[in-house]
């Protein structure tokens, strides 16, 4: 297929109109922003953009009522993770019905691609995602976040829980329980960020 070639004669003076049109656009937007207050930009970081309720932000590790991780260190999230950013070491729990829990659970947030596969893979609904997306650190090590930081997320109340398995699967009470627990603890859907 051949493409057509245009030749533009740049020696011809374009005249006055293009300048008028250009300035008109500028003035129109100036009026819209200053007088009508309809700007599309927001004052980040004082203002934050409202994101979807299924937003895939920084991970949360859900806790049991006694404060221990809900995770049973089954490694399914580490298996499914396409970025290989989850590192788990399993240990023995005294309760014989649970047996196993993560001694170490680390997510390298710089490697993570926020695909949410870990949330989908988790059989215990122990890993969820929040709507927090502003990730700042001064070193790489700081952004490898460990089990205890994943369980006690400071920004959670502000941003709310993001991507999590839908609770239509009513045959599994464990899922509902976890979501109720998150509601009590952090406010599941969270106060929506003010604009």
């Amino acid at each position, binding site marked *: 297929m051949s493409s057509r070639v245009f030749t533009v004669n740049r020696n011809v003076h374009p005249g006055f109109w293009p300048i008028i049109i250009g300035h008109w656009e500028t003035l129109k937007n100036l009026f819209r922003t200053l007088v009508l207050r309809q700007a599309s930009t927001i004052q980040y970081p004082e203002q934050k953009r409202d994101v979807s309720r299924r937003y895939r932000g920084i991970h949360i590790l859900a806790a049991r009522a006694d404060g221990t991780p809900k995770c*049973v260190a*089954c*490694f399914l999230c580490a298996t499914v993770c396409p970025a290989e950013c989850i590192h788990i070491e*399993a240990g*023995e729990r005294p309760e*014989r019905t649970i*047996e*196993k829990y993560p001694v170490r659970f680390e997510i390298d947030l710089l490697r993570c691609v926020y695909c949410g596969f870990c949330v989908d893979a988790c059989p215990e609904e122990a890993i969820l995602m929040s709507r927090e997306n502003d990730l700042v650190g001064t070193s790489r090590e700081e952004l490898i976040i460990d089990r205890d930081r994943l369980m006690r997320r400071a920004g959670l109340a502000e941003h709310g829980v993001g991507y999590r398995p839908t609770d239509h699967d009513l045959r599994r009470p464990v899922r509902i329980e976890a979501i109720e627990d998150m509601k009590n603890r952090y406010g599941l859907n969270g106060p929506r960020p003010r604009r």
Partner: protein
Amino acid sequence: MKCMIDGREIEVEPGTSIILAAQRLGIRIPHFCWHPDLSVDGNCRMCVVEIEGSSKPQTACSTMVTDGMVVHTDSPQVRKARRATLELLLVNHPIDCPVCDQAGECYLQDQYMEHGLHDARISLDEKVRKRKVVDLGPIVLDAERCVLCSRCIRFEREVTGTNQLGFVGRGDHTEIAAFDNRPISHNYAGNLADVCPVGALLSRDFRFRMRVWFLESTPSVCPGCSTGCNIFIDHRDGEIHRLRPRRNVSVNRSWMCDLGRALYKGAGAPSRLLGARLRSEDDRGMIPVGEALDLLSSRLRDAGEDVAFLASPQATNEDLFAFQSLCDAVSGMLDFRVDDPQDRMAVLEDGVLLRADRNPNTRGCLELGLGRTGVDAIMSACRAGRVKALLLQGPELLRTPAAGIFLEKVPFVAVMAENDEPALARAHLVLPAAAWTENEGTFVNFARRVQRIERAIEPPGESRPRWRLASDLLARLSRPLDATTAWDVFRLASRSTAAFSGLEHVSIGESGLDLDAIKES
């Protein structure tokens, strides 16, 4: 005797079961209780097949092939029967796959995905609860996961003869138990976890270490004794997580001992030597391996014929051959029999697999003719001050209590070792050697069977295989060995050794070759 299985004809000898005949055709019949190296029990009912002329499905494990038998392993009747069996086996299963170490190599998981895929009709609350996390020493028992196949009971009865496990209770309360929960006390406990098709019996050592689907398996041979059990080295990212037996009917069948299973720990131990170490007046400093080899080769050259070499029966044939070539290059004294493992080679220690000689390659040393001078002669020469340099392929001699007296007058002792230990302080120069998991080569077991080991992981730090250390020294003595891999060394060895003549690593194969049988054919 001919029969048809799924429309394919096969000829088998009388007394072959249908499951074995099908296996030979590459048809896998699902099963739990059948094991190729245990007696047939026929209790799990999973292996049922349809035999033309028989109204009901028959178990493939306990039905022998008859002439002209026509078998269908995947007919609607068979599929229905399998599904029903699987659903019954899963009735009281706790479905705790996320915390179960068997997940990934579990017969229940695999066969549910292949033949079941039914919805559960029993809720978790209705299931019969049994004992969980019962400590049986090297084994952890979870009675809820058990499918009551009795493989472990038959293993205890037929292989070790210890009978430590049995069924207790009736109906759906039946469970596996050890008397008084006493720990499994024999040396073959690890096999219980292997024979268990589900997660009821699991290894204490491997518990929660790694999920099995991450592991990569390298075929190898256990270096724990002169039996030479065939094994798989299961590793991930340069770290070994477990050893498990590899079936070889001529050597170890499907078993290996717990002493052998624990051997992976040495290769990853924090005491591994990562560089060469030279003993000097002020301190024992680390030096680059290249520098150490330069030093050693100049010592060997200076010493002339007053050099003694002591090989190790822990080394592979390739290591031994390169070591022997090094000895020939300077025409020194050579032997390998520290503590004389030769006497104990054929002695069975517990009547199952373990042999008194804990070296994998004593036979290989003999085949290569390493027993030349005699250890006593070398020792007396050392004591008389006639040995100017002594090169040890392993630290065995240094560990003997009398070593201090014998080595007093030897001005230069060099040793190749994998792990640091106090005995190494007796040597002047320590060279870091690769462990058996990081080396490739061959071992000859007590019955003259040559078997191959393969490299699972890379040697740590500057350590390198013993044959490589020897060939590096030979290159410095301007007698280079014509070899870049261990298999090249084996080719060289096969040219000069009668027992290995005409052999190559490819012809040895994964299950090894009997040297006596080759000679006859």
